[in-house]
């Protein structure tokens, strides 16, 4: 398919009034070589029955850049060829008849510097509702260095976060306060204190804890900060609690963030549902106020989970690194939420590496240079427990926040015991790994040995020993291990 020639109509015939196929209007340029400064998007295109795949892919390029349904003479008032997005490659999706990977290049001048809202309004704008397509998914993007450099990036970044917290050499430990809803401020602070004193580094508001009748936000903030300071004094360690400042308006969010800052919190959180512009605003605020910014990806599964339609989470992760959050939930692999191991690995690399090489088996389609933009700490949360520590360390590495909500608060001897169990399990595993032991296979043995001198860990291992979530993943990469000329 890539051997085709351009069929673009040129000269004055191109601008005759009427309807012309997108692939003849200049949106299909199989010989185009993307420039280093181009933004590249990879879409999975599923055309309606009877629609020519090349035409469908050209239409995606057209509708996400300059085109409308008919020829317009006003194109001739512009450098139209530069502004047209160019689909330059169409491949059938392996093992998925009727779907095609379309590679589309966009000139840098199509985008406002430093604006996720502007980028996304083009790339995932009208085009997702385009009738000739059954389904459309944005799989990956290559963001040129020239564009990356127009963004602030993570307000704090992994290295500075670790320096501020004085915590090195191991994953950070957190827990989400449960129950998610209904606790009063005073009771809520109790959970925070117990978990932090027991050995966790962070506790966290859940995504839907904002300011409800059972607990208004100021109550929560004040009791939480008392708990954080008490736990710091009790342990001699820096502690934090993600105060969720998500609210109905920017003014409300700023008010809550300012208050968190005033009472001495080192971290706040926001939900993905506040929108890209609000996220960028909060990231700038966080940089200005020495605040770590945690992002809970509430809502993402509505568009990331199904393979044929929506936006891959790897793209969301890239946008969030640009937008400037410091933490992002990126999957656990072994926990209760969706997460194919290879796909999840791809997300983690996007958050943490300076350079991502193309790696189809991880769903990474492009080389991505992050140009020294800060690294962002992935967070593993949802259905994980101390007994999985060796797997978590192996799959997710060291620069990650491991969040055990139920796995801390559900401990039979209470929250402090749950926190201690997790911390001891983690430290024992890091010690063993650094000693060069085969900790992945000897994991259960290492944990059992650590439990000999730590009753809370022994109890945790007994309670949750058989808990796993083994379900078929709905979002695994589609690739052929060795490149071949697919026909």
């Amino acid at each position: 398919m890539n051997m085709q020639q351009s069929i673009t109509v040129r000269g004055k015939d191109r601008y005759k009034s009427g309807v012309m196929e997108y692939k003849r209007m200049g949106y299909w340029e199989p010989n185009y070589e993307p420039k280093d400064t181009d933004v590249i998007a990879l879409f999975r295109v599923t055309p309606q029955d009877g629609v020519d795949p090349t035409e469908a892919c050209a239409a995606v390029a057209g509708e996400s850049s300059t085109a409308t349904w008919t020829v317009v003479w006003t194109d001739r008032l512009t450098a139209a060829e530069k502004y047209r997005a160019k689909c330059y490659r169409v491949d059938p999706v392996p093992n998925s008849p009727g779907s095609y990977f379309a590679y589309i290049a966009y000139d840098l001048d199509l985008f406002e510097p430093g604006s996720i809202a502007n980028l996304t309004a083009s790339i995932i704008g009208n085009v997702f509702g385009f009738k000739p397509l059954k389904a459309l998914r944005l799989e990956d993007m290559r963001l040129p260095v020239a564009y990356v450099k127009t963004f602030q990036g993570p307000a704090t970044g992994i290295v500075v976060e670790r320096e501020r917290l004085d915590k090195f050499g191991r994953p950070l430990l957190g827990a989400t306060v449960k129950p998610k809803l209904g606790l009063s401020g005073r009771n809520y602070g109790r959970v925070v204190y117990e978990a932090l004193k027991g050995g966790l580094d962070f506790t966290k508001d859940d995504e839907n804890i904002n300011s409800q009748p059972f607990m208004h936000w100021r109550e929560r903030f004040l009791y939480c900060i008392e708990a954080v300071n008490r736990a710091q004094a009790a342990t001699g360690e820096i502690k934090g609690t993600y105060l969720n400042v998500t609210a109905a308006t920017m003014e409300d969010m700023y008010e809550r963030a300012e208050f968190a800052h005033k009472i001495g919190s080192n971290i706040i959180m926001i939900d993905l549902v506040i929108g890209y512009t609000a996220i960028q605003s909060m990231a700038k605020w966080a940089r200005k106020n020495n605040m770590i910014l945690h992002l809970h990806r509430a809502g993402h599964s509505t568009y990331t989970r199904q393979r044929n339609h929506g936006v891959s989470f790897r793209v969301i992760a890239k946008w969030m690194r640009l937008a400037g959050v410091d933490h992002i939930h990126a999957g656990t692999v072994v926990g209760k939420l969706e997460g194919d191991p290879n796909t999840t690995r791809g997300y983690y690399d996007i958050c943490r590496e300076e350079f991502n090489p193309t790696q189809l088996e991880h769903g990474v389609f492009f080389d991505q240079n992050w140009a020294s933009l800060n690294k962002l700490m992935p967070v593993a949360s949802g259905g994980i427990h101390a007994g999985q520590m060796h797997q978590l360390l192996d799959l997710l590495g060291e620069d990650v926040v491991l969040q055990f909500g139920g796995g801390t608060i559900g401990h039979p001897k209470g929250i402090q015991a749950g926190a201690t169990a997790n911390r001891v399990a983690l430290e024992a595993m890091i010690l063993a790994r650094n000693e060069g032991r085969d900790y992945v296979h000897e994991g259960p043995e290492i944990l059992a040995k650590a439990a000999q001198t730590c009753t809370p860990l022994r109890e945790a291992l007994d309670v949750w020993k058989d808990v796993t979530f083994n379900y078929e993943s709905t979002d695994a990469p589609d690739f052929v291990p060795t490149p071949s000329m697919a026909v």
Partner: protein
Amino acid sequence: MRVTQGCFSFLPDLTDEQIAAQVQYCLDKGWAVNIEFTDDPHPRNTYWEMWGLPMFDLRDAAGIMKELADCRRVYGDRYIRVSGFDSSHGWESVRISFIVNRPREEPGFRLDRQESVGRNIRYATHSYAASRPEGERYADQ
């Protein structure tokens, strides 16, 4: 109380053999190992005193263990920590840090609260050990 800063404070105190294994891990990664000590373990006390410079060129854990033994001889009544420093681009900071020596008694911290308007409280964490002048903080031991 037990100060739980560093990577391994929730485990029983490391033996010298265990410390040497962690040091070797740092050296194998190409990190510079540093020994520091303090008699004020306040969580915001970033700059502990350095026992000499970070050992950028030392490639053998035994050499570092000897330095640690010397440091313990002089400052065995204080906190001593070992850290591994990675100078590679994009990190250029500490990669691991853990406590290898503690005073026999760890008096811990007092939390001071200053009540202010609107239920706000200014918190201050006070190291009990720091009530005495530097150098005399664990003199009884």
